[in-house]
């Protein structure tokens, strides 16, 4: 009897200790992987001012995007970034939020960056990435950008706040930088959506299907979604879709923004 108790004791002791070890190991690994983003974000913030976001409640005037001749200043040092991480091709920034990250695309594996950091370390938080179904110059009608819904609000973990109308109005502009251009997008929808693969479900070069997608967004009606109907979006416009997890496997949380200027 006593012997049996002893065996049981040791069994649970081993179990407990390995669980603790695993937790510590996991946490440290996680921290290590997440650090890279802090590092490179800081490097790209020096001496750079985030442009003021317009505070008016009025919907922004949408201009027909036309590249201008004058040289533009890209606040991101792409040359240095790409030397180290060749898959970085753009940068996403939403002023006054945690979203301030490089965007990567892998030529080899569509899902590589789902669970690899830009350094190639496996596991969370992964990367902010696109699939190669999208061109890298944001010329597609819809560019879908993925990121994890991290509990601590990093990566795309803060996007869920866009279901709050007041938050959307306070953070209306998304900046995308590439080595040559600055794109400004205005957020128009935050939607709890199904888990279909958007780019494989709709052909955005087909206006009919593009419109169908837009209609499907506008058709969503629940308190975990908000659509700013003051912003006009048609199939003439180019949009980006930020896609993140919704805490279950049937749904995704999408933030949709429309291109309002391009330099």
């Amino acid at each position: 009897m006593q012997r049996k108790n002893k065996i049981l004791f040791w069994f649970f002791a081993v179990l407990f200790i390995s669980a603790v070890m695993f937790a510590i190991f996991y946490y440290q690994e996680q921290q290590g992987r997440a650090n890279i983003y802090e590092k490179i974000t800081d490097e790209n913030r020096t001496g750079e001012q985030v442009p003021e976001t317009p505070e008016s409640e009025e919907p922004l005037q949408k201009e027909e995007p036309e590249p201008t001749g004058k040289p533009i200043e890209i606040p991101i040092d792409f040359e240095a970034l790409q030397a180290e991480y060749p898959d970085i091709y753009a940068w996403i920034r939403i002023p006054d939020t945690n979203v301030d990250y490089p965007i990567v695309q892998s030529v080899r594996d569509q899902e590589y960056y789902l669970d690899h950091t830009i350094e190639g370390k496996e596991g969370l938080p992964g990367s902010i990435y696109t699939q190669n179904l999208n061109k890298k110059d944001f010329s597609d009608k819809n560019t879908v950008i993925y990121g994890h819904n991290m509990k601590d609000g990093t990566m795309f973990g803060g996007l869920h706040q866009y279901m709050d109308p007041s938050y959307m109005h306070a953070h209306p502009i998304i900046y995308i930088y590439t080595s040559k251009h600055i794109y400004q997008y205005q957020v128009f929808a935050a939607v709890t959506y199904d888990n279909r693969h958007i780019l494989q479900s709709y052909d955005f070069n087909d206006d009919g299907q593009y419109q169908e997608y837009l209609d499907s967004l506008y058709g969503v009606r629940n308190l975990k979604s908000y659509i700013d109907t003051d912003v006009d979006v048609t199939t003439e416009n180019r949009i980006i879709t930020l896609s993140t997890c919704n805490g279950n496997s049937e749904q995704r949380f999408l933030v949709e923004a429309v291109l309002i200027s391009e330099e």
Partner: protein
Amino acid sequence: MKSKRKRRWIIGICLGCALVLLGGITVYLFRNVRSNKTNPEESDLDHDYSQASEDTIQYQGNEYVYNQNLTNILFMGIDTKGEVVLKEAPGTAGQADAVMLLTLDEESRTAEILQISRDAMTDIDIYDVSGDYYTSIQAQLATQYAYGNGKQSSCWAMKKTTSRLLYDLPIDGYISLNIESIRILNDALGGVTLTVPEDYTDIDPAFEKGAVITLTGEQAERYVRYRDIEATGSNNERMERQNQYLLALFQAVKTKAGNAGNGYEVFYTLLEPYLTTDLSAEEINGLAKYHFDESKTEYVPGEVKQGEEYEEFYVDEGKLRELLMENFYKLKLS
């Protein structure tokens, strides 16, 4: 003695090794399981990391959850006269001329009414004669009832459409009563007494402002049914009368039978031909436990516009959201 100590040491070392090995295996297994994913839409990798649980709603900088103390029951007053034709699909079950949501608060034992305009423009699902979904079209909420069998399926469709109009608000049950039953119920109660709040003498000469009258069955029907189709916004005024009458009626039922807790049994045979509900007798009798607060009746915000043929009520979405958050959701305790 010495060998025993030695044996302990050996066991200790063995256990230590086993422990490290086990830890290693666990980590290895976890990492491999984790990297087993397919596409980002279906990935379940980050579920443990999802920040907000599915039922958290962010609003005005705060997190809210649905108030689980509440039970919402959809009440419909049905007028079976007339046919509805939307998109060439005839709906013959009649219309829901009065639509309201009774919200029972289990904790405070109070009940409140949310009045929803029958003319509220929303997506109406159209079903064909065999009950299959055909299409959706923007039309008055009341018409949804027409596309069903006039019993359960009509109520079910109303419940679904109303819930959607109210941003996916959970609706736990429904009661539909044909408006013709008002006369019968009113008389069975020996009349319902109320104070006329406005001058309604064009409906009935007795309906003078401030008059306290006990309505006859016929008057009661006119009180809840009359609508001056010439005047824009006439349904708003009618909703107020319906609200007032219903509460007075409820009070009268409670006085007559509710205190014995068997209102359902007393009136069932009378109402049976006019009543459709998915509530049990027990649940209906249970309504008597609640105190209806007339002063707290809310109306879905919006404005009336004259449509091509009929009046149309357009919901003010921002204000509706506000009203829903205030009445049905509460701050999430962190």
